[in-house]
């Protein structure tokens, strides 16, 4: 991971100049060292030699005959693109063509204005603008000639009729799959596209970048595409994650159609204010609240996927705890406090099975509907009411506001295992 401004990253072709990818399985290669005596006659003069190895698939640079390096940072040989010269000549050619077209475009609007030269001294027109007005190329091109005759010559690619014939044994011998590269291995290095595994060559690692993410309604930038890993925070800290009680599935009994089973949900209060949770049957027309979907696996699906999740039909009945559950505020220091809880909550042990800090595990009883086929996803839902303290200061209201919020929660803990045998 490196701190890089985007311009520099672009200059390095978006690749890290110190790290390499395994050409076999695309993991990052690690440097390994071996001590080896230089000469058998002088066993004492040993030196360290370094090679790159993949700890995952055990591929090493020794496999493909890349010589070991004396320095750990290595000047690792990088295989040059065999068509490099041709490509650069194309690039140079088209750069100049593009510049010429651009300068011609800029020329047109000024055709009508003539006789500007008399003003140049009066108004002190800069050299730059004068050149532009005159239809001359701006400075970057100043040294180069854009005469069409002086374009760098390019040789067009020619399709050849003759293709190297396959070897005689190609159809008769079974292929040795361990020696032939896979499609993805070839595509990972498009300029070389080695056919056999002995031609694989490590490549510089691509930079990772954060994905740009905008708010769906207000179009603010929530997460900017940056190379800098130091700023991993969201630009706007208004994600529901910081304000809503978090619900996670802890454990549940095997799900059988028509049989009630216990499910234990872990509720976490992420805010700095005490809150009280109540459970009720899901509200039908709940327009104020948003819909949060917590699926059993993976648990944070709703954050990874920005698409709104389509909620399918609920197919289970649920027995909700009647009494409210109080969650104390989040306390970062409490994580390291082993002395036990100082809070004295009068919890019904039948409902709250476990409690620590701002977390509590609450027991629910769900009954998947009769006649559900094994393998169908079980979905149940309830409405979660929680007290929320709005600390955002506005012009009118300076005091924190308390509000009762209600959201519908849909949970798909898993699939039906089987029907009960009767």
């Amino acid at each position: 991971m490196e701190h890089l401004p985007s311009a520099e990253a672009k200059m390095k072709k978006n690749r890290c100049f110190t790290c390499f990818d395994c050409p076999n399985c695309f993991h990052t290669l690690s440097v390994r060292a071996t001590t080896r005596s230089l000469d058998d006659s002088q066993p004492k003069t040993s030196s360290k030699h370094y090679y790159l190895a993949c700890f995952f698939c055990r591929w090493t640079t020794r496999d493909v005959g890349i010589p070991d390096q004396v320095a750990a940072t290595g000047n690792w040989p990088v295989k040059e693109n065999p068509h490099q010269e041709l490509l650069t000549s194309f690039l140079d050619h088209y750069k100049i063509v593009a510049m010429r077209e651009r300068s011609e475009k800029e020329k047109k609007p000024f055709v009508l204005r003539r006789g500007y030269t008399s003003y140049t001294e009066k108004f002190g027109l800069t050299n730059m603008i004068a050149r532009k007005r005159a239809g001359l190329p701006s400075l970057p091109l100043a040294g180069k000639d854009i005469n069409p005759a002086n374009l760098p010559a390019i040789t067009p690619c020619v399709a050849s009729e003759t293709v190297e014939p396959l070897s005689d044994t190609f159809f008769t011998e079974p292929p040795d799959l361990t020696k032939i590269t896979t499609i993805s291995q070839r595509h990972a290095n498009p300029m070389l596209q080695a056919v056999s595994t002995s031609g694989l060559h490590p490549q510089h690692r691509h930079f990772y970048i954060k994905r740009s993410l905008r708010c769906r309604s207000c179009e603010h930038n929530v997460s900017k595409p940056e190379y800098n890993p130091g700023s991993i925070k969201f630009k706007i800290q208004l994600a529901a994650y910081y304000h809503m009680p978090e619900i996670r599935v802890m454990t549940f009994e095997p799900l059988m159609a028509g049989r009630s089973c216990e499910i234990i949900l872990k509720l976490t209060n992420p805010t700095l204010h005490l809150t009280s949770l109540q459970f009720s049957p899901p509200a039908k027309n709940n327009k104020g609240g948003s819909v949060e979907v917590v699926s059993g696996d993976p648990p944070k699906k709703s954050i990874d996927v920005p698409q709104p999740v389509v909620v399918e039909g609920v197919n289970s009945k649920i027995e909700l705890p009647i009494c409210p559950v109080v969650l104390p505020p989040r306390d970062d220091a409490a994580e390291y406090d082993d002395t036990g809880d100082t809070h004295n909550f009068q919890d019904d042990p039948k409902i709250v099975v476990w409690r620590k800090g701002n977390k509590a595990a609450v027991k629910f009883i769900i009954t998947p509907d009769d006649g559900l086929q094994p393998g169908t996803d079980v979905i149940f839902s309830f409405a979660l009411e929680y007290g929320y303290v709005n600390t955002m200061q506005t012009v009118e209201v300076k005091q924190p506001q308390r509000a009762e919020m209600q959201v519908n929660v849909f949970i798909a803990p898993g699939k039906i295992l089987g029907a009960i045998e009767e």
Partner: protein
Amino acid sequence: MATSSHGKDVRISQGAVVCMDCKLEGPITVGPRTVIHPKACITAEGGPIIIGENNIFEEQCVIKHKLDGETKGRPQTLNIGSNNVFEVGCIVLSKAIGDNNIFEAKSFVGPDVEVGHGCIIGAGVSLQLPEKLPDNVIVTGSQYNRTIAADRPPPQTLQLDFLTKVLPNYHHLRRPKDRPNVL
């Protein structure tokens, strides 16, 4: 000795480090300088298991030698070669294991797989079909990609030295029995 379930037919050679807390069942011979971590499980149901030198059996690994249907209950010996590493949580039911193999964490090798020499079974790889693994094969990844390495993985000498030094500090060991070397 509550958890020790090894009978009289477990023979431990000099220099081997076998923790008390592992499960050894049936006639098992442990070769010199072999390290068996606590919570490893080696069961010899279908005949004796003979373990060679310099092997490492890590925690929660399961080596099972089951009765084979073909041999009609006649005991067959399972020979485990030298310099093998059985990493955490691997399950090996193989009938033959050579030298210098590495069974990475959570790998599974079925009973009809013959493991040669220098094979590396990657983490999470499950081999269930009958086959004979060629030497120096490396099976890795979710697609079980196979490659053939140029040479065998190097023996874990440093790790073995470290384990033989450190394990006795924190675990009770099974002592090798003083008895003449006769089978």
